[in-house]
């Protein structure tokens, strides 16, 4: 593969990253592995001893696991929607960030569904989903939607990787044989011919168009697991769009954080520029406003009409002695903070945007928890004549271990992926130059925008 000047530059910059694993990476890998092992031990206990060792009980049948499931599928929207839409709109500055975004998608879509499996009491009967499928069940929709979405995301990521694999293959990197072989296989004989380029271009366009509706379907179906039931706080018509918007929003936050980490870790300032943070910050701000609007209308209507059961759930959310502080945190850190920080020119810096992204992502995780648990703690019939320990949900260490195990898996996959492929796509840089050298807007324009 012949590289142009800009491609060569980008490649030289990242070459050491994929050539050497490095002591630091080893340390991180071991650190993450330790968490994963702890999660694995918790999983072993859960499987052998039964779900009794979790905090879930007959009233609160789902807990942390489902919150994690929604959370991970949510952040997977970074690649699917952000990268997909930017691709369709042919936004030039997307090019350095698409790889990170699509990696988030694939990795989060691998981890997310694991959490729904953790809620399943009989993992040995999982094949029943395929031998006795019931198409009427929202869970079956989820199985179909997520598996399609995952396949689509992998293809979307891979299409953008083929040219890079060919570059790694031809670059005579100082790497082990198996890795070289793997690059060769994955490059599937790409030589940069006109016809090959055309095929990749058409396929990528098609996938970009398909991945957006697929992603919307996935989170809608997921929200309907709750929306289709007769439970207060769940049985809401806006749950589909509300979940979709929250998902894109949290995905953007994770994308910003990942960019910040890579920029720091591998010194990629010239590719992941301030401009990228500010543009994604704008996107985050708009999504945050939309998410805030949905949140407001969801709770205002419930509170104003004050139907009996809805009021019970709202009372739990508004009462400081119950979930009040968490609810406040979810809305302040999840809605107000990102909007204010991006809106004010003074605070609109990469560091601060990344910091509020972190808060926002945590707030959205809390929000998912607040969607699941308070509703399950508010059944329509009074919670009497049930064991006292069944009334309130408190997650046990097993659930937390598996939660952190999942987060560690996310980081580990990311670390390993960044050692296998360059996080900044090399082949994307056309002859005319990197986006960093040709800013779309100059600084003044950004400030006034």
């Amino acid at each position, binding site marked *: 593969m012949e590289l142009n000047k800009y491609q060569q530059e980008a490649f030289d910059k990242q070459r050491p990253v994929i050539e050497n694993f490095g002591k630091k990476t080893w340390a991180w890998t071991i650190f993450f592995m330790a968490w994963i092992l702890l999660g694995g031990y918790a999983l072993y206990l859960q499987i052998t001893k039964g*779900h009794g060792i979790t905090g879930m009980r007959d009233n609160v049948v789902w807990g942390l696991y489902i919150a994690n499931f929604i959370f991970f599928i949510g952040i997977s929207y970074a690649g699917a929607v952000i990268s997909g839409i930017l691709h369709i709109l042919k936004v030039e500055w997307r090019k350095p960030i698409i790889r990170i975004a699509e990696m988030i998608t694939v990795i989060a879509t691998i981890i997310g569904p694991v959490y729904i499996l953790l809620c399943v009491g009989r993992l040995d009967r999982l094949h029943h989903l395929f031998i006795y499928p019931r198409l009427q069940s929202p869970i079956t929709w989820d199985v179909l939607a997520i598996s399609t979405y995952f396949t689509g995301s992998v293809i979307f990521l891979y299409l953008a990787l083929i040219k890079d694999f060919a570059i790694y293959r031809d670059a005579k990197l100082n790497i082990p044989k198996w890795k070289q072989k793997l690059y060769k296989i994955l490059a599937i004989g790409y030589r940069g011919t006109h016809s090959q380029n055309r095929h990749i271009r058409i396929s990528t366009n098609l996938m970009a168009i398909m991945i957006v509706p697929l992603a919307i379907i996935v989170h809608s179906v997921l929200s309907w697991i709750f929306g289709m*039931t007769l439970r207060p706080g769940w049985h809401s018509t806006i749950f589909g769009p509300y979940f979709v918007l929250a998902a894109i929003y949290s995905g953007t936050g994770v994308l910003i954080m990942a960019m910040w980490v890579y920029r720091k870790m591998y010194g990629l300032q010239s590719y992941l520029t301030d401009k990228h943070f500010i543009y994604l910050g704008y996107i985050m701000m708009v999504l945050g406003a939309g998410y805030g609007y949905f949140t407001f209308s969801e709770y205002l209507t419930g509170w104003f009409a004050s139907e009996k059961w809805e009021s019970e759930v709202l009372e739990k959310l508004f009462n400081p002695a119950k979930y009040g502080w968490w609810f406040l945190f979810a809305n302040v850190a999840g809605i107000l903070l990102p909007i204010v920080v991006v809106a004010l020119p003074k605070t609109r810096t990469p560091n601060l945007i990344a910091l509020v992204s972190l808060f926002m992502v945590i707030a959205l995780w809390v929000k998912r928890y607040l969607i699941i648990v308070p509703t399950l703690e508010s059944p329509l019939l009074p919670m009497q004549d049930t064991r006292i320990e069944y009334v309130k949900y408190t997650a046990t260490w097993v659930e937390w271990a598996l939660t952190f195990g999942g987060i560690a898996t996310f980081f580990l996959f990311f670390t390993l992926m960044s050692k296998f492929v360059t996080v900044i796509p090399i082949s994307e840089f056309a002859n005319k130059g990197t986006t960093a050298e040709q800013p779309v807007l100059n600084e003044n324009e950004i400030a006034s925008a």
Partner: protein
Amino acid sequence: MKELETNDNGRRDFIKTVALATVATAACGTLASSCSSKVAANEKVKLLSPDGEIVEIDSSYLNYQEHLAIVSKLEARQGIAGKKFVMVVDLSRCKDARKCISACQKWHYRPEDREWLTVKLMRDSENAPPYWFPKQCFHCDNPPCVKVCPVDATYKRQDGLVLIDNERCIGCKFCMAACPYSTRVFNWNEPEMPFDIQHAVSNPETNIPAKVGTVEKCDFCPDRARVGLLPPCVEACPNGVFYYGDENEDTVSNGDETLGFKQLIKDRAGYRFMEELGTKPRVYYLPPKDRQFPVERGYENLPDKIKARYKDAMEGTEK
């Protein structure tokens, strides 16, 4: 089988079998051990036959009858032809004696604290007096739980019952989240049961044995209905709160008296709980008018552990 006959004979058979059932339980009551799971072989049990004669039967035979899965799994999915099981609960008679609960658990070999049937202390509004409200599975005609099951493990039968095949259930608990009445329970840990029960042939009609990681609930005892027995909760109730029967036959019985279902609902203003949810329950309630017991009667004599469950609700009523 008697149950398979059409409506002409159905009513008379039903009454006859109910009578036998009552006698059989009475016999069980006197010879308490003979109805528990473990009985020494060759022990004789005296029973009153329908013709009024006292007969002696080997107790092992009685046990054998108890939990025989008498139908195939396919039949257990189809249900009993021509039947539409229904239950009427007379709220004016309930004093939270909790005999229904213990009988149900004993019959199904469930431990003490795995209630399929619960008794709530309900209070419809601030000025309304509280009343005891026994609640089992409503066997809805539009069941939210069946709608959401991804593997068809819980299903609706032609005789109106909603059952669970616990050999198919994957334990996703979606049905538990979907049921608006918190009826379903989950086997969070390996259930403890007698050895022979643990190794019994599983059937959705008997609900035995319980299986870890699966959902279970009140099944309206179709295995007993097939042999003409009333569910244990109905038989055990000292106050005749529960009436069980067949909507097609228009007959319900609480063991002591057998009444016309429609007439009972008409005379006593029967209603279905939370009709507005559209689930169409198969359990009807008779309003707690002219109550036989003051509500405190059900609270005072409870063991402390159970008492604690109602503490909040009872405090509200004393004001």
